[in-house]
C-alpha cells in the first residue's frame, strides 16, 4: 500500500521529467538543425530558435550538391566504406576462427597482438610516412588499408569471443564428412556468425562514415568524403557561418546512419551492450 502511494506521484512526474529532459537536451539542438537547414543565408547568419520566414529547404539541399559536392562526397565515403568493412569483417572472421580454436602459446600471443588496437590509439603520423614510402599516400586504397588495420582488433575481439561459444562438434561433423577447412569455415562457421558480423558491420561502418581525423591525414584535399567536405565547407572563409548550408549538410550525412539505426535498433543496442555488463 505504502509503495503504491509512493509510486503514484512518480507515475505522473516521471513522464514529465522525461519530456522536459528530452526537450532541453535533445530538442533544442535538433530543432536548431532543422529550422536552420530551412532558412535563407541571411536569416541563418545568426542561429536562433525561430522558424524560417520561408522554407528554403530544397534550395539549400540543392546548393549542398552543386557547391558542397555532396554527391561526389557520398560516393567517396562509400568507396572507402564498402571495401574496408567487407575486408575487415571477412579477414577478421577468418583469423578469429583459428585464434578461437587453436590454443598454442604462439597463437595466444598472436591474439594479444591482434586485439591490441582495441586500446592502443593508431599512430597517424608514421602511418602517413609509411603510406608515402609504399606509394599509397593520398589514395583511397591507402586509407582502406589503414581502416582495415585499425578496426581489425575490434573485429577479432568481437568475433573470437563469439566463436568460442559455438560448439566444436558442429565443425567435427562436417570434417568427418570430408569437408576441408575452407568449406568448414564458409559453410558451417561463417553462416553462424550472422549476429556478431551484423553488429560489427554497423559499428565499423559508423566509425568510418563519421571519420574525419584519419581521412584528413591520408586523403585530405585529394578525395571528397562527407565529413571531410563538411570540415572544408565549415572552415573555409567563403562559407563561414553559412549555417543553413552546414546544417543541410549535417542533416543529409546523418540520414543514412539514422535509417540504419531505425531498422537495426535492436541489433545495435544488443551489440554495444553485450560484454559490457558481464
Amino acid at each position: 500500500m505504502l509503495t503504491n502511494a509512493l509510486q503514484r506521484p512518480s507515475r505522473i512526474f516521471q513522464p514529465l521529467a522525461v519530456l522536459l529532459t528530452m526537450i532541453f537536451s535533445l530538442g533544442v539542438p535538433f530543432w536548431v538543425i532543422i529550422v536552420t537547414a530551412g532558412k535563407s543565408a541571411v536569416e541563418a547568419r545568426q542561429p536562433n530558435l525561430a522558424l524560417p520566414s520561408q522554407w528554403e529547404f530544397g534550395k539549400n539541399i540543392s546548393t549542398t550538391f552543386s557547391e558542397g559536392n555532396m554527391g561526389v562526397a557520398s560516393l567517396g565515403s562509400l568507396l572507402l566504406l564498402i571495401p574496408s568493412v567487407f575486408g575487415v569483417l571477412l579477414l577478421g572472421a577468418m583469423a578469429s576462427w583459428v585464434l578461437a580454436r587453436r590454443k598454442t602459446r604462439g597463437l595466444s600471443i598472436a591474439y594479444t597482438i591482434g586485439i591490441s588496437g582495441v586500446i592502443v590509439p593508431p599512430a597517424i603520423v608514421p602511418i602517413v610516412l609509411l603510406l608515402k614510402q609504399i606509394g599509397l599516400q593520398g589514395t583511397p586504397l591507402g586509407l582502406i588499408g589503414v581502416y582495415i588495420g585499425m578496426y581489425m582488433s575490434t573485429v577479432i575481439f568481437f568475433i573470437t569471443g563469439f566463436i568460442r561459444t559455438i560448439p566444436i562438434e558442429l565443425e567435427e561433423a562436417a570434417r568427418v564428412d570430408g569437408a576441408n577447412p575452407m568449406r568448414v569455415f564458409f559453410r558451417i562457421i561463417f553462416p553462424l556468425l550472422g549476429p556478431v558480423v551484423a553488429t560489427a558491420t554497423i559499428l565499423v561502418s559508423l566509425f568510418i562514415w563519421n571519420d574525419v581525423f584519419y581521412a584528413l591525414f591520408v586523403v585530405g584535399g585529394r578525395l571528397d568524403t562527407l565529413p571531410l567536405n563538411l570540415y572544408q565547407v565549415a572552415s573555409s572563409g567563403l562559407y563561414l557561418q553559412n549555417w543553413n548550408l552546414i546544417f543541410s549538410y549535417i542533416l543529409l550525412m546523418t540520414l543514412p546512419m539514422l535509417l540504419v539505426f531505425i531498422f537495426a535498433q535492436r541489433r545495435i543496442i544488443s551489440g554495444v551492450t553485450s560484454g559490457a555488463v558481464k
Partner: protein
Amino acid sequence: MNAGAKVKLLLKRPRINAASKAHSTHPIWFIVPAFFFLIIFFIVPTVLNFVYSFTDWSSFKTEVNFSGFSNFSQLFSSGNLVADLRITILYAVLVAVFQNLFGFALALLLERDTLLNRIARASFFIPVIMSALAVGYVFQAVLEPKGPVNSIFSFFAGRPVEIPWLYSTTWTIVVVSVIHAWKWMGLAMLIFLAGLKTIDSEVLEAARIDGASWFQTLRTIRFPLLAPAITFNVATSLLGSMNSFDIVQATTQGGPGGTTELLNIYIVRAFGQGLFAQATAMSLVLLIMVMVLAFPLIWSLRKREQIL
C-alpha cells in the same frame, strides 16, 4: 568404416599428432591476411612512432637524422608538452565524469519499460550515431553569444543573457567536455540500463520489504552491483576521449588562447606546418599516456569488481 570406428581411430592417435591435426583442421594461413593488414597498417606505424620521435624528420629537409631527445626537449621548453598533456587529461577526466553522470541519470530516469521511455532511449542514442564533427558544429551554433541557448536563459532570467560559452579561457574546456559527454551519454545510458537489468528483482523486493527507501536501495544494492557497467563506461570514456579531435576542432579549434588544445589538435597543426618529427613525438606522448593509464585503470576497476 562406421562413425564409432572412426572415433576409436582418432582416440588411438598418438599425442604428438595433436598439433599437426590442428594444423590441418584450422590452418595457420587463415590468420595471415588479417595480420598482414594489422601489421603493415597498425603495428609497424606504432613501432615507427618510437623511432621517428627521435629524429629531425620535417618537410624542410630531404634527409632524416637521429636527433636524440631534441623533439621532446623542444616540446617541453615551448610549454606545449605540459600544457597539452594537462588539457588532454583534464578533458578526459571531465568527459568521463559528465558522460557517466548523464548516462546514469538517464538510465535511472528511463528504467521502466514504457512506450515513452523506449522512444526516449532511442532518441538519446541519435547523438551517438551522428558525426562528432557535426555535433561540434551544431553546438558552435547553439552556444553562440546571441544563440539559442542564451536566448532560452534570457527568457527564464527575464533579461538579456550573453554567456560567452566558447570564448572563456577558464570554462570553455568544461563546455567542450560537456558537449563530448552529450554526444556519448546515450551509450553510457544503454550500458547502465543493461547493467540494471542484470540485478535480481528479488533482492530489490527483499530490500523494499525491509523498508529500504529508493535512495537506500540505489546506494547500497544497485550501485555496487553495477560495477561491471561502471568499469566499462569509465574505461571507454576516459581512454576514448584522450584520442579525441573532432568536437574540439569544430567548436573552438583549440582556442581560446590554446586552452582547449588537445594532443590531437596539436598533432594536426604541427603536421600541417611540416614539423613531422614534433607531431610524431607528441603522438608518442599520447600513446604512452593511454597505455600508462589503460592497464592500471582496467586492472584496478576489475579488482574492485572482484571485491564487491
